[in-house]
């Protein structure tokens, strides 16, 4: 039996259950429209300004780091799967199985170290570091 049929079935069920709960709820619940209810909640105060606030740039830096590193895990995973059999395989051995990945991880770590030292994952920046982005012209 193809396992993906079962997985698809669970996905379907996983969708149907919330939808079903929503349907039941919509039958049960009252609807009393009122202007005040639909205001944005700001701890009971009158909402000020829009929600599209400017947020810390670090969120973006982290996301960027993640995109790169997460994808690298994609490349690590196949290696972990074959690693044991590769080590014991004729003509491959420990060095040939391990060294490339060590190199790969070393490059990653150098990249991480660089990002670390240059403040990519530092939430609060020292004022003097902002000098670095002053450019000519």
């Amino acid at each position: 039996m193809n396992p993906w049929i079962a997985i698809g079935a669970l996905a379907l069920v996983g969708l149907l259950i919330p939808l079903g709960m929503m349907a039941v709820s919509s039958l049960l619940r009252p609807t009393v429209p009122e202007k005040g209810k639909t205001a944005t909640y700001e701890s009971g105060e009158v909402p000020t300004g829009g929600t599209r606030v400017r947020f810390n740039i670090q969120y973006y830096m982290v996301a960027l780091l993640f995109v790169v590193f997460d994808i690298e895990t994609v490349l690590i995973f196949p290696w972990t799967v074959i690693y044991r059999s590769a080590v014991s395989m004729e003509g491959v051995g420990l060095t040939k199985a391990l060294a490339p990945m060590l190199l790969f991880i070393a490059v990653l770590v150098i990249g991480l170290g660089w990002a670390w030292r240059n403040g990519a994952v530092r939430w609060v920046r020292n004022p003097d570091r902002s000098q670095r982005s002053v450019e000519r012209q």
Partner: protein
Amino acid sequence: MAFQLPTWMALGPTFVLGLTALLLLVFDSITPNATSRGVLSGTATLGSLVAVGLSAWYLLAGTGAEPIRLYQNSLVVDTMTLFFAFVFSSVTALVSVASYDYLRDHSYQAEYYALVTLAATGMTLMAAANSLAVVFVSLELASLPSYALVAILKKNRGSVEAGLKYFLVGALSSSIFAYGISLVYGVTGSLLLPEIANNLAAPELTGVLGLGIMMVLGGFAFKTASVPFHFWAPEAYEGAPAPISAFLSSASKAAGFAVAFRVFLVAFPIEQLVTGAAASVDWVLAAQILAVVTMTLGNFAAATQDTVKRMLAYSSIGHAGYVLIGLAALSGGNNEFVLAGGMSHLLVYGFMNTGAFLFIALTEYWSIGRNFEDFNGLASQAPFACTVMTVFLFNLAGLPVGGGFMSKYFLFGAAVGAGFWWLAAVGAINSAVSLYYYSRVVKAMWIEDASGEFDIESKPVGLYAALAAAAVVTVLLLPGFGPVWQYATDAAAALVA
């Protein structure tokens, strides 16, 4: 030789460049606040010079005479690989030296040099790629740092805009390239170039294959700034910091051609696809059309520009058109000659065009304007730099003051020899047009009178050194064209065979 280097050392230039990039990042990680321009620029230069030396040594020692196949044949080191590694690392060295001055007040110094050397790593890998997978990965390795480099002047609108446009076209074309690869893979069931050729014997899905090949061609067109993916080039070259323009227009373009030569000749052999009995996918014809359109568009657009940098940018498209002759004249039975013409032109172009852009870098360093008129009378202030620039420009135009003359005429001669005299004729007309716009710069520098005072406070050592080196090599390539041609022919022979 007393001892034998391990075979993986055949990729020495690539490793050296890659390690240099990592070393630069480590430097920057150790002291992120201190910006020691000398150390950074020196490291990048030294690294690329070592790569130059390695590739030259390998060439001389005949390392690539018998292709060294690595990693299950997905990389191959032959004469062409080393030939282009020499080009890339030379350009990298020149650019690194020149950037010492150009970047004097800029931020992101270490990143800059690291990205340059990383891109160079990708390029050397491109020249060695023998599998479409490696082609794609190395192409991206060369492209991604380039996008960032173009936009590295974060506060400069031109630079950012250039980076954006370069990136957008690049992303688009690389995805088209990937799709093309997937189609080729679908038809042939392999990504290794020789195996693709083997499996082409009876392609059942000719249409799909043709589409795939055209898409792959499109990917190369982007990298080489050829029509139809040339739109980025003028913008990117104009907006980017001038050393980066030099790097992109020389090394990056050469890399695109290197990999295009190998892919098309090895994976899609002419005998099978173009001239064979079951001729189906005439990519040579496509290359012919691209060559003619590219060189004409590039040269005529260059002739109408107001700014020197943009003129050089368009002229670089024109030169891509010339080199495309190397692919376009392939079915004429003079393949070795034609290919070698393209390759040697790329080598010479690497020096002369880099030099020309570095001169632009010098003028930007001096804050001289961008228009032709702004160069008026510059020769009276900076005679050496202007002499050198004149040498580069006349070389680009194909006048015999250096190797540019040789390579261009060898290329045209090869095209004629292959029976494509019309290609050479179109090239000749374009060459004449190019003479017009190149001489405009010469005219401005030497003939026109200065309209105002130049504010030249210093003669930057690094830029001058890079200019001088590029000029000396360019000029020496006229009498010394023999070895270049020899290696280019060897490289081409290995591909054609």
